């Protein structure tokens, strides 16, 4: 069973709203750096950067962060997750970092991402933007910007399919086999 939660248009509208919220909350774009979590988060961070840049006529730096080496379940899986590239384009010390991810679930990825970020410097603040919050947090973590709250059961899967991966933009909910 597959259910579409957001289509291409929905995703675009949600990102536009988050872009405005980021500007509003931070009173502009000064000192901000967007950092996407590999892989979905990186694509979304780039889209947000383009939107914010267009609204504020400003260049928004975008970084990418791979969290594989900071996970808390290393050695518990059959295969190690693929380590993708991390590229933080600016000195993050004293910057406001906006972490971007596609789906917020247990919060463990965000914990790993914050640890990974801290190895690059001491940001003034870290904020979190996610496209979907599906609940079931296992750590005390909350997002500052949420595209859509979607209550799910543990037996369901949410998948963000994005154009950058060669798919049609959509967010789908599936029952796990």
């Amino acid at each position: 069973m597959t259910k579409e939660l957001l289509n291409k248009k929905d995703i675009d509208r949600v990102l536009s709203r988050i872009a405005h919220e980021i500007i509003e909350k931070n009173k502009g774009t000064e000192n901000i750096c967007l950092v996407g979590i590999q892989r979905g988060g990186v694509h979304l961070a780039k889209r947000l950067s383009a939107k914010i840049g267009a609204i504020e006529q400003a260049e928004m730096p975008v970084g990418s962060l791979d969290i594989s080496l900071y996970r808390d379940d290393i050695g518990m899986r059959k295969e190690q997750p693929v380590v993708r590239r991390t590229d933080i384009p600016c000195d993050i010390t004293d910057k406001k970092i906006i972490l971007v991810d596609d789906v917020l679930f247990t919060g463990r990825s965000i914990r790993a991402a914050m640890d990974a970020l801290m190895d690059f410097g001491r940001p003034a603040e870290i904020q979190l933007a996610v496209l979907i919050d599906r609940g079931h947090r296992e750590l005390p973590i909350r997002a500052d910007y949420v595209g859509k709250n979607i209550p799910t059961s543990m037996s369901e899967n949410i998948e963000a399919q994005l154009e950058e991966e060669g798919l049609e933009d959509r967010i789908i909910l599936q029952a796990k086999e």
Partner: protein
Amino acid sequence: MKDLVGIKELGRDDIERILDTAASFKDVLKRDIKKVPALRGKTVVNLFFEPSTRTKTSFELAEKRISTDVLNFSVPTSSVVKGESLLDTVRTIEAYGVDFIVIRHSSSGVPHFIARNVKASVINAGDGINEHPTQALLDAFSIVEKKGGLSGLKVAIVGDITHSRVAKSNVYLLSKFGAHIRLVGPPTLIPDMSGYDVEVFYNMEDGLKDVDVIMMLRIQMERQVKGFFPSTEEYSKNWGLDEQRLKLADKNAIVMHPGPMNRGIEISSDVADSAQSIILDQVTNGIAVRMAVMYLLGGAKGNA
């Protein structure tokens, strides 16, 4: 995959995964904080039955930068370790609760034997004249970094191939990726490698012509007991790489050496220090590649 005992045992996709992962670890080594917590809580023992400074240092640094706890188990090099006592040594070490055993031994096949008998992941750091898989992986990584790939490259491996585990592992790896391999050296030091796509040259000038990569091997004084060549002077005259000979290779050829170098014997100082030499890149890349190997083996507990 539980162990890395040899390149022979790896598939092309395994090697590609190691090299891709190593690229990410190389980025880590460029940061201010050159350490990641990936293998926190895991323990590694470096079990070297043969003297080694470089490989051991490189492994130890890689182990520390991926956050394992490191144990160095030094074995007196003079003592003869027989099959049974070797296994007892390893079982004792395993009882300490180690997750990785990095082993170097003067006898071929020892890492394979140990891997079959322990639950820990075994990494071969050189066994006799058989293989030195992490060296071949770091060599491949270094070549890809400079040349963009391996397929179709002309690679000359020069020197004592017979006694070189580095050469063997490199032949196994490069042939999996469609490189044209040339073995260059005196007839006494080139083994029969039929079955692999290699060309043999007993004349260095012919062997180096138009190659893209020159891998020089160290003359292993400790293994030269039977007089495979008359003298080091003679060897150097015939098989040493100097600027004149380097000119025979492609003008963008890279020069590699696994170290430690015998300057003035197999490689002249001006070549070793030239812009075409990537010998120091090999050293840096070795750390990244060894981190990648440990990371990928470290997740195999589920199917061990």
